[in-house]
Structure formats: C-alpha cells, structure tokens
C-alpha cells in the first residue's frame, strides 16, 4: 500500500449537508433550551427550596430529634448480586452487517485478551517478561470465520506474546514492541464478579504501590495531562485495601454514569513492578476499571476520604 493511497481514500470520505443540517438543528435546540428553561429552572429551584424549607421546619417541629444518618442508598437501585461477564464472542461472519471490534485483541488458549488501559512504564517491560508464549497472527477482520480464531489470532499485527511475571496468564499477557511500547492484554470476560476481589486481586495493587497521581475529568477529557502527584499514600492504601470488598453493578443498569462528567476523577497507580493501573472514580463511591462492564461500589467513608483528597 502506498502512502498516497491512504490520503486519497481518506479524502473521499466527506460529510453531507444532511449531517450539517441535523447538527445545526440539534445545537440550536440545545442553545434555545438552555435560554428558555434557565429562568424557569431558577424559579423552580426557588419554589423547591421554599417547599423544602417549610417541610423541614414542620418536620423538625414535629419530631424535634436528629434524623437517623443511615448510609446512602446506591445511586441506582441496580441488582448487586454476582454478575456474570459473558465470554467475549467473536463476530459471526454470516450476519448481514458484519461486526468487529477495533480494539486490539489476541486469542490465546481459547480466551480473548483485549488491550487494556493498564500501562507498562518505560524501561520496565524487560523485567515483566516471564516466558514467550508464541507469536500473533495478523488475521482477524470483520469477515473472519469462527475457524479463523485459532491460537494467537489477533488484530495487532505480528508480535511476540509473553506471560507476565507475577500475574496469572489466564488474566494477563503482554507484547513487547520496540521503542518502549510494551502492551498488556487482559482477559476479563467469561468470569463472574461477586465482589471487587474478582477483578482487583488480579491487578496486584495492594501492598505494591510505588507512586500515584490523579487527574480531573476536565484534564482527562481534553488531554491536558494535568496530573497531580499524591504525596501521602495512606488514604490511597486504605482505598486499595477496600477494593476487594466492593460490590458490582452492571454497567448497562447505570447508563448515565459516563455522561455525568462533573463527577469523575482518574487515578493512576504506579506499582513496584513498573505497571501503572488506571482507575476511573465516580462520585458516590463507584469505580470502573478499563472496559469491564461493571461499576464497583465502595463503602462511602473510605471512598469519600480519597475522593476529597483529589482536589
């Protein structure tokens, strides 16, 4: 393939007037809604506050005693029983609209390992390599048949694959590219999550933290990379110790979580072995790891102590 082929082919993708018109209408509507509803919202807010005030006064007059400070109920009343994450199924080439995932993946011993957000710090890859498991094939695409998903089938080109020192190879394997670009691949499908231990114990974070930093949503969303180092790790260690006791909630039962952009923070935990785990935190105690389709709810006190430190 020649580089001009890339340029020509990409250049032929053009948006149409329909998209421009629809976007224009949606953006205009959003702008108007903001303008129209703001005064009503302000009035509504005042009315609600007045009502709360009146009810509050009456309530305290009636009972004249402190309200019971029970723990917060979960943000969403989703089912918190053990959650089964189905084994990742590869696309069925017989479907009319062929589907495929564009994330990097490797097939190994019947399991599908996908690219993970957990990084390997530069210079640490060599120390993490345990044993060469094989070499990937560059053969998965949207037309692949089930028969193509043989050992080391992949979407990542041809690369050597290794087991990782200190980690279960049923969970994590790695490649080691040039220019310090080693990459972990993880299999967190085909498992049952009863508690956070079923995910976080595999990451080996506890008693293994070297340094940590965090980032506000604004910085993460705009790639500003405005990280802040966490000096005192005591609160973080308490938090990490509590991860194994978190309760899973299905991601699909809480569809609005990612939209609530103001209430998210990101922590990056560098471990002694040179890996860096990224966790996404949501106000009210929820934690999300990579692409695992569950939110894990932590007990409020421990979570809030960390949350409040991440200013």
């Amino acid at each position, binding site marked *: *393939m*020649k*580089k001009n*082929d*890339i*340029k*020509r*082919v*990409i*250049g*032929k*993708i*053009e*948006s149409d007037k329909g*998209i*421009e*018109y*629809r*976007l*224009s*209408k*949606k*953006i*205009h509507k*959003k*702008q108007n809604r903001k303008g129209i509803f703001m005064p009503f919202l302000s009035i509504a807010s005042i009315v609600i506050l007045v009502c709360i005030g009146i009810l509050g006064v009456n309530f305290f007059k009636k009972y004249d005693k402190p309200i019971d400070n029970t723990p917060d109920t979960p943000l969403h009343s989703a089912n918190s029983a053990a959650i089964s994450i189905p084994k990742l199924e590869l696309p069925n080439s017989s479907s009319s*609209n*062929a*589907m*495929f*995932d*564009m*994330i*990097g993946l490797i097939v190994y011993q019947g399991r599908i390992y996908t*690219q993970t957000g957990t990084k390997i710090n530069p210079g640490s890859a060599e120390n993490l390599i345990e044993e060469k498991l094989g070499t990937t094939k*560059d053969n998965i*695409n*949207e037309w692949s048949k089930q028969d193509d998903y043989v050992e080391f089938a992949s*979407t*990542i*080109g*041809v690369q050597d694959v290794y087991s990782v020192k200190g980690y279960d190879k049923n969970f994590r394997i790695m490649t080691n*590219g*040039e*220019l*310090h*670009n080693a990459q972990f691949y993880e299999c967190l499908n085909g498992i049952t999550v009863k508690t956070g231990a079923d995910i976080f114990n595999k990451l080996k974070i506890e008693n293994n933290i070297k340094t940590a930093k965090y980032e506000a949503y604004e910085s993460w*969303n*705009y*790639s*500003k*990379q405005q990280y802040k180092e966490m000096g005192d790790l005591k609160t973080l260690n308490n938090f990490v110790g509590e991860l194994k006791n978190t309760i899973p909630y299905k991601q699909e039962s809480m569809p609005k979580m*990612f939209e609530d952009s103001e209430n998210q923070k990101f922590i990056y935990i560098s471990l002694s072995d040179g890996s860096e785990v990224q966790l996404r935190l949501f106000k009210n105690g929820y934690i999300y790891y990579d*692409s695992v*389709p569950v939110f894990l709810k932590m007990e409020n006190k421990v979570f809030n102590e960390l949350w409040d430190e991440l200013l």
Partner: protein
Amino acid sequence: MQKTSRWPNDNFSDKYVLYGNMLFRICMIFLGNKEDAEEAMQESFIKLMYKSPKFIDDQHEKAWLIRITTNICKDMLRNIWRKRVVKVGEIESFYDRPSDTYIMEEILKLPAKYKAVIYLYYFEDYSIKQISETLGIKDSTVKMRLKRGRDILKIELEGEEL
C-alpha cells in the same frame, strides 16, 4: 464553500465549513458508521462552541478539536464497544473502486490508538512533532504507533526515515 446563513446558528456554520469534513473523517475512521460519527461530531461541536478555551490561533483551535474529538471517539468505543458496528455498505458508498473500499476497511481494522496517528501523518501531513503536540503524547510513542500502524497496513516507506 458558501456560508450557510439560512441555518439557525451562523457560528456553527462557519465552524462546520472549517472542520466538518475533518471531524467526519476522524469520527468515521474511529467509529465506522455515520450514526455514531454524527453523535461524536455533535459533542465535538458543542464543546468547541460552548466549552472551548481561548485559542492562540487557528492551528491551536484545530489541534484542540482533533484531540477532544479523538477522546470523544475513544470514550464512545469504551462505552459501546460491544455493540458497535462497522457498516460496510456505508463505507462502500464513498468509493467507486473496490480497491479503495478495501484500503479503508484495512484502516478501520486498526487498533484505535494507531488511527489518529495514521490520519494525522498520512492525511494531514503532520510531522512527528506536530502529532506529538496535537495528541499530547511523546514523540517516541507517535513513532511506535506509526510504525505499528504502517506494519499492519503494509504501507511502503517511500524514502521516509521511519
């Protein structure tokens, strides 16, 4: 292209003329279908019009827009990755020749993190340094992603250093 002043938001129309095609291409390359691409574009334009910082110049604005759009696409991939579809028919509609469709399908198959680099290097003619600054990643990472992407796509080097 003429300014489309009949539409309700003149500022949007100006920005769309400047960036509409670019954003559509980026979103299509990441997401593989028009519906998701349009949703991502909507979010990008809303951020550009209501939440953007003060830009030093047009290049700054463009770089910022590319960065937030790739982030929006990546976030969408993270949220919906098991439901996402590449609509082959939509891709075919852009091309007359099957060989061009094939090339685009190969690009769509790339792991997400290589796509932005490939797009900026081969389509926008950005240098490694410009890509590094635009995406906020190290030069060495850009080089690695470019190399990987090029290996997967089997792009001939044609006298390039990398």
